[in-house]
């Protein structure tokens, strides 16, 4: 691991100043992904600003009837909160489908959104990877690609975003609140936070250098049932091969793209009276495999149909 200097920030302006003032500085929250990547020298920050003690760990109900989740609320705490479990069960279910109890106790809301892909080649500095080393090529295109993307990928990168939580938040229409080093605050719809790889897979979000996520806001829960279904290689403690979040008429997919994939074609088809099968086909029309992940096309279709039915059952219960 590359040596780094360390400081603990106690307020948001101090944290912003600390990162803006040092080249190679990074925010450090739960650390469950960043520290792992530092161990394999994929991440090499020169300076870490520990934000764990910033006052951003509260969950509040908003005047609009939604929820404001502080950036530092731990995944496990969020999943267990009654203000989430009853009105937003899809979010609790997604969080609880991710990682292990120990990791959920450390991983934070903002850190979960900003975690990096688990592409084997991204983690292995001995292989080409355009995300880790722009211009070096993509080893996954011709390599082991059974965990890779079927939607929105590019010739430069076929990595997926690994989060479960973000898929549920996408279906719920969440937004991300941030502050920039100049003090400017903005709200970014979650669907616009992450980018597709295009020619620049090393860029993963629209966040500017030194911009800090302070909260995630949820609008009031949409009418209708909610459900999260995750298909993975084993029954627990594994990343999604395909996952589906349904919140009323809003649907998002995980494990299929470089970002949580809001299924807008599917939503539009259902709203105009299409059957679930027709709607799934509309969403997956542009999907394509790379050999090892061809199985994700039929798997995604079936997972969509099953989760839509599951959400309807939940609405009736």
């Amino acid at each position, binding site marked *: 691991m590359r040596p780094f200097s*360390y400081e603990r920030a106690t307020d948001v302006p101090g944290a912003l100043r600390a990162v803006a003032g040092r080249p190679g500085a990074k925010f450090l929250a739960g650390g469950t992904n960043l520290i*792992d990547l530092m161990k394999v020298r994929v991440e090499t920050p020169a300076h870490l600003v520990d934000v764990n003690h910033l006052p951003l760990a509260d969950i509040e109900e908003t005047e609009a009837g939604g929820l404001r989740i502080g950036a530092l609320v731990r995944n496990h705490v969020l999943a267990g909160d009654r203000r989430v*479990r009853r009105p937003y069960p899809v979010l609790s279910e997604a969080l609880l489908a991710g990682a292990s109890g120990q990791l959920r106790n450390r991983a934070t809301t903002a850190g979960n959104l900003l975690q990096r892909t688990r592409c084997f080649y991204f983690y292995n500095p001995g292989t080409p990877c355009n995300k880790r080393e722009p211009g070096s090529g993509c080893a996954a295109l011709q390599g082991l690609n059974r965990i890779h993307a079927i939607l929105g990928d590019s010739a430069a990168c076929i990595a997926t975003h690994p989060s479960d939580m973000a898929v549920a938040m996408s279906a719920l229409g969440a937004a991300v609140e941030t502050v920039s080093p100049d003090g400017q605050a903005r709200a970014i719809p979650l669907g616009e936070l992450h980018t597709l790889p295009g020619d620049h897979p090393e860029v993963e979000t629209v966040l500017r250098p030194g911009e800090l996520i302070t909260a995630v806001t949820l609008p009031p829960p949409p009418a209708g049932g909610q459900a999260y279904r995750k298909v993975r290689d084993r*029954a627990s403690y594994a990343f999604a091969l395909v996952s589906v979040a349904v919140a009323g008429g809003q649907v998002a997919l995980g494990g299929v793209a470089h970002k949580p994939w809001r299924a807008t074609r599917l939503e539009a088809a259902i709203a105009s009276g299409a059957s679930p099968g027709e709607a799934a086909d509309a969403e997956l029309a542009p999907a394509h495999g790379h050999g090892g992940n061809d199985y994700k096309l039929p798997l995604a279709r079936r997972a969509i149909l099953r989760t839509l039915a599951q959400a309807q059952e939940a609405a009736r219960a």
Partner: protein
Amino acid sequence: MEVRDRVQQADAPVIAQIALEVNGVVRALTVDTRTTLLDALREHIGLTGAKKGCDHGQCGACTVLVDGMRVVSCLTFAVMHEHDTITTIEGLGRPDALHPLQAAFVAHDGFQCGYCTPGQICSAAGMLAEHARGWPSHATADVAAEDIPLSDPEIRERMSGNLCRCAAYPNILAAIKDAGGLT
């Protein structure tokens, strides 16, 4: 040579003085900032109960309690834990006064080689506390339910972050049920 000197300077270790409260004792440590909590416990303090298995947060052998919450100590830096309360397997019970989970693991033979056991026991202690807070799990049919019985599938799911290569899982489950008052 000049270039190499610069590289060496940029890669020079950064040393920090910290105080860690472990098992009720505050200890002053001088550590490289890269030192994980796990390495601080094992190599600096000499508490070798927490084990290094994968060192990547995947096996759970290094599980300890930080402010009562179970965490993997390999994916967190020691410098992040000043003013936290850390409990390791050595602080959970003593040889002459075992923690109920330690006694139950002995009674139910909840191990073979024993390497994962400290992590299993610390994880189980944290898991039972999480259940006492009413938290659901992936095995819970209705996450909004008020009362979630700690069934066998619930325990298995909640303990999935702790691997046992000897596959002592049936006896680990029996030990946790016993210590948790579930049998």
